[in-house]
């Protein structure tokens, strides 16, 4: 987001505080367990989408392997807690570490190529991880999946229902959103954007393009792994489907529909995705047809995602009041893989 640079020095923090307060009271307004469950799913997808957004939005590379890292994190924590009896709280950072380890190795190999080749290569890596998970029955129980995963717990506080889990994931979403915000403002984040906009130029300024991309990719996979672990301990059952093409497509749809390269975009996209997924449950396979049409429609007609509608409105509003509109010629943090 283009932060308070245009006379919003007081309005923006207030809006953010209001938004966080609204998110905090949401479970009390939900009223029933089903809606609370949907809120958890919303936050989980928001977390995963924020992590994918680092690669798609800030690095400007399209990855088709993100769901595999979610799966690696989920399986790591699930296996550690069911087979070794490790407390899920310890499994959480380990899931992030293991996913980051996979991200490092795969990123090291895949980031040598860019654009469509990188997209396809990550798809191939995702397929490898899926195949291994599906067939290494001794470790992962294959297509049967892992059941009876214990819920997450911090001391006496157990996250065994929707409401506490919602706050746990909300806290992680806010932390990740803040990290993304801080990142974009930092030297490293500016290097990300420079690499996205013009890699040869960034290299000529002394930015190590490969290392910059690898760093972003590993950070994204670590967050994806943590998100996957929370998912495993919340749903309590995981199957290799978590790594499947369907989930890859879902995460990409969330980021693109919401608005890549922004912080609110992926959160908004996750809300739209979960909301439509549930309200269209009766439609069966038609749901994915609708999502596919939405994806294509967004890419073609609204490249900035839903969040760009608000920015458009705000700019129009500003010019009405003779305030300077957000300049379009300056490098902005919005945009991403175009």
């Amino acid at each position, binding site marked *: 987001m283009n932060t308070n640079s245009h006379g919003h020095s007081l309005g923006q923090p207030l809006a953010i505080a209001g938004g966080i307060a609204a998110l905090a009271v949401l479970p009390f307004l939900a009223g029933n367990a089903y809606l609370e469950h949907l809120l958890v799913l919303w936050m989980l997808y928001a977390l995963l989408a924020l992590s994918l957004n680092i690669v798609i939005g800030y690095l400007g590379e399209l990855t088709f392997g993100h769901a595999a890292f979610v799966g690696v994190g989920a399986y790591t924590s699930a296996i550690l807690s069911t087979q070794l009896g490790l407390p899920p709280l310890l499994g959480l950072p380990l899931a992030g570490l293991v996913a980051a380890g996979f991200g490092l190795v795969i990123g090291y190999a895949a980031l040598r190529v860019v654009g469509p080749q990188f997209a396809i290569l990550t798809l191939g890596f995702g397929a490898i991880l899926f195949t291994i998970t599906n067939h290494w029955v001794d470790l992962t129980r294959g297509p049967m999946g892992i059941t009876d995963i214990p819920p997450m717990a911090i001391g006496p506080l157990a996250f065994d229902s929707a409401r506490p889990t919602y706050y746990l994931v909300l806290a992680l979403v806010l932390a990740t959103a803040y990290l993304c915000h801080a990142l974009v403002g930092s030297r490293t984040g500016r290097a990300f954007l420079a690499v996205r906009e013009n890699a040869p130029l960034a290299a000529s300024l002394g930015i190590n393009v490969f290392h910059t991309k690898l760093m972003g990719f590993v950070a994204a996979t670590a967050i994806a792994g943590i998100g996957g672990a929370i998912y495993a301990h919340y749903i309590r059952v995981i199957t290799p489907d978590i790594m499947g093409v369907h989930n890859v497509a879902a995460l990409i749809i969330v980021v693109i529909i919401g608005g890549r390269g922004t912080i609110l975009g992926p959160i908004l996209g996750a809300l739209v995705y979960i909301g439509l997924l549930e309200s269209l449950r009766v439609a069966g396979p038609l749901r994915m047809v609708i999502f596919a049409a939405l994806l294509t429609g967004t*890419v073609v007609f609204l490249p900035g995602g839903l969040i760009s509608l608000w920015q458009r409105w705000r700019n129009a509003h500003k010019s009405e009041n003779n305030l300077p509109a957000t300049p379009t010629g300056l490098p902005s943090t919005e945009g991403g893989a175009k």
Partner: protein
Amino acid sequence: MDFTVFAQQIANGLVNGMAYVLIATGLTLVFGVLRIVNFAHGEFYMLGAYITYFVGTLFGLDYIAAAAISAVVVAGLGVAANKLIFWPLRRDHEFTILLSSLGLALLIANGGELLFGADPKYVESPFADEVLEIGTVTLTQQRVLVFAAAVVALIAVYLFIRYSRFGKMMRATAQNPDGAALTGINIGLVHTYTFALACGLAALSGALVGPTVMIFPTIGNWAVLKGFIVVIMGGLGSVTGALFAGLLLGVIESLGGGYISLGFMEAIGYAMIIAVLLWRPNGLFSTARGLR
């Protein structure tokens, strides 16, 4: 090592590999000529198999006629997809095109599930149960047909690209679309028949492979993944690369499945491309822009 088993594995691998080559040739043509990474390519393979099935069962036509009709119909669908999505987006960023094709892939795969049902189907073929013995190697006639028809189709494509007027227009467009347009080549027409050719080849592959496996609406995912892997390994835009990489992937998968583990067969194939790409990041046959 038992030579009979080894020869059998190689033969199986070559047959599978030839099917990959057919899928990958279309993908690599569409990329090489039009600069489009078409995620929906596998769905045309799926449609090829299904249309062969429906033409065969609903109209009672024999297998060969059904396969030919399916290739023509799917080529037409490819042209329609090009007119509706890819042609209007031709000036857009490559990610817009890639994401739109992902949308198209989801649309066709899930639309197919709505129309055809999720239950697996079998494509009837008179060659599926007849066995052919070549020396010590035993193959069903259908699998021999996969290989033979693919070889004929690939030779035809090669001659078409190399010697026909339309093929020369394709190569000119691949080298430089603006330059080609300046010399009077109708780029829209090149887009149209490149898509027709690519989707027809994918459908032909689906129609040929259909009788050897079960078909269901999600096989397009599998097909596009194999196609991409072959294309990336061979080098994006390289037809020769697709041929070698496809056969290599088929044989390695077959040997890996036979001697190491059937379950990990696919993972072994993917691991191989990674090894190749660490050595040559742009594929085995990558050179400057153009169609090879």
